[in-house]
């Protein structure tokens, strides 16, 4: 079992008005095999948390810690974090010019595993992953995310999740912008990865819709840069009915 531990994390960004604190003391522990939902209103800092775990240079950790099985994640470069088993499915996946999906997937797989995948099985794995996520095989020859629709980009993130087999996946609003069919396909992909690899999941979402397909054991309500309440799946049901007003009112 592996553990991803976030302790009293404070994160700031540089803005034109100077430094702005976005995360104000986040504490969270996830073990492999567990699914945690992080739910919160827009602007509460969910993407900031996700990007900070992945090591985006825009975010500065001012205090607190992130460790993976006791190893200091904050000391690792972005690629080292991926190699250590962290995966971020991005809210807005980037279009990368000049790099085909095929080339990208093989290069990333080689980097993460530290050795090139066996060609025969790899080709087969990639094909299967494409078809399970109902991504047209033509996409293999296209440049990474270039000209993909919002929904296609999200599927391609989950495709990578299945192929790279991380210990922990952070899914940043993977559900937003998906229709019901696509939501099902994507959720099934996440569930497969959990079953096959004992993956731990941090499921960031604004809506409860995806929780019908991916069942969390833990729900954390995220408001204004910190966890305002935590509980089991029943907390999500309550949010479904009441929305976030209760937390926002408390604050006001």
């Amino acid at each position: 079992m592996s553990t991803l531990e976030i302790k009293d994390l404070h994160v700031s960004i540089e803005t034109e008005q100077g430094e702005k604190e976005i995360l104000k003391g986040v504490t969270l522990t996830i073990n492999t095999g567990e699914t945690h939902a992080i739910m919160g209103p827009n602007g509460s800092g969910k993407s900031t948390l996700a990007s900070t775990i992945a090591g985006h240079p825009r975010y500065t950790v001012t205090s607190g810690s992130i460790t993976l099985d006791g190893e200091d994640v904050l000391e690792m470069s972005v690629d080292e974090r991926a190699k250590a088993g962290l995966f971020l499915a991005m809210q807005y996946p980037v279009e990368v010019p000049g790099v085909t999906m095929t080339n990208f997937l093989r290069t990333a797989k080689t980097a993460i595993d530290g050795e090139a995948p066996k060609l025969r099985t790899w080709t087969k794995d990639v094909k299967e992953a494409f078809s399970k996520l109902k991504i047209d095989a033509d996409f293999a020859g296209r440049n990474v995310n270039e000209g993909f629709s919002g929904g296609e980009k999200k599927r391609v993130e989950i495709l990578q999740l299945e192929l790279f087999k991380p210990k922990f996946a952070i899914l940043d609003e993977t559900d937003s912008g998906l229709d019901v069919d696509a939501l099902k396909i994507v959720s099934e992909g996440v569930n497969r990865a959990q079953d096959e690899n004992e993956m731990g999941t941090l499921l960031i979402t604004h809506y409860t819709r995806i929780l019908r397909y991916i069942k969390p054991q833990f729900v954390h309500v995220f408001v204004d840069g910190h966890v305002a309440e935590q509980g089991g799946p029943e907390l999500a049901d309550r949010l479904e009915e009441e929305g976030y007003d209760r937390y926002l009112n408390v604050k006001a």
Partner: protein
Amino acid sequence: MSETTTHIPDEKVRIGAPSIPGFTEEGEDLSPINDNDNSPLGGASTKAHSHGGGVETPDSSRAGRLTSTNVEDFAKLTGREEDWRFTPLKRLLGLHSEDLTGAAPKVELTGNDIAQLSVISAEDSLNGVAHTPDDRVSANAWKFASQTQVVTIPKNAEGANASLRITGESLVPAAQHLIIVAEENSEATVILDHVGSAVLAQNVEFDVRANARLTVVSLQAWEDDAVHASSQQAVVAQGASFKHIAVSFGGDLVRVNPSARFAGERAEIELYGLYFADAGQHLEHRLFVDHAVPNCKSNVLYKGALQGKDAHTVWVGDVLIQKAAVGTDSYEANRNLVLTDGARADSVPNLEIETGLIDGAGHASTTGRFDDEHLFYLMARGIDEKTARRLVVRGFLNEIVQQIGDEALQERLTETIEEELAATEN
């Protein structure tokens, strides 16, 4: 990245030029690259000049460009001319203004012995078979080239392979004249492999006769101090196909102007290019495809990568579809990838269409930037920074490398791209 595509308007249009910064319908503003302080016209917009002796039509069209073998027909350059406004004239080291008395780079032919290399005098009537200088440097080269080297691909030859190693050995301004004749129904690949150090004004003619298939790779692999202005003109006869690939990465200033003119129907012209500019380098490509006859096809694709302070690339693509050229199918595109701050890519597609009766015509120009977000995405998938950068550049340029066909050369280019990338990392 943004893209524009244009389709068949029903009367003559000129697309592209007016949208460039500093350029208006009337002409261009002062070039920011060449200082014009001693000019009486300082600040006023200007047009290309033409003087007696040459052929001329109205100068709003590419067809109106002055052509002449006599250098005196061309006005002294100021840097404000439309076709020189991006070129830092000082760095031409006199190619446009001085006597070109240096020794021409040495030419050595290797390959599979089908092609023949011969030398003709400057008076031989073969000179000019495909070429008439259309700028001052080209005309200056015409004047000073004392002889012409001719590569002939015999009639019906198949699989001819000719590599011309063109080695510069001095920085005294020099002129050179080459002619490649692809006789009827021949098939050949010719490589012009420019290496060493030179300050060279060069004219290269391609006479592509009926049903011939000629592939040319002009490789500018010069040392850092080289200056090279090359005008490469092709005339493509009925049923023939001409594929030209310009590859530029070495030299201080390189300006290659490939142009190709259809002389018979059902012919095809493909112009490809690949360039990789480092800090301080100026790499310019100005091409021209002249559809003067019906039912021909042309395709243009140039891709360039830039890195380092003051790396500058210029791409100008003129495609002219004349009134007679009904049934034309034509497309041109230029794509640039800027890898670091401080580099500048100018890209100007000009499509002139004088007839509505064409199959298609379009142009595209994109300049993308490899930025921190791309890098973050790739690194978040375990790929280290160095590999990420290589992945992007290699992938981007590969589309052109694949067009080359010659395996050894393809390999050499791939290696060169790796070296260029390694240079940024240090």
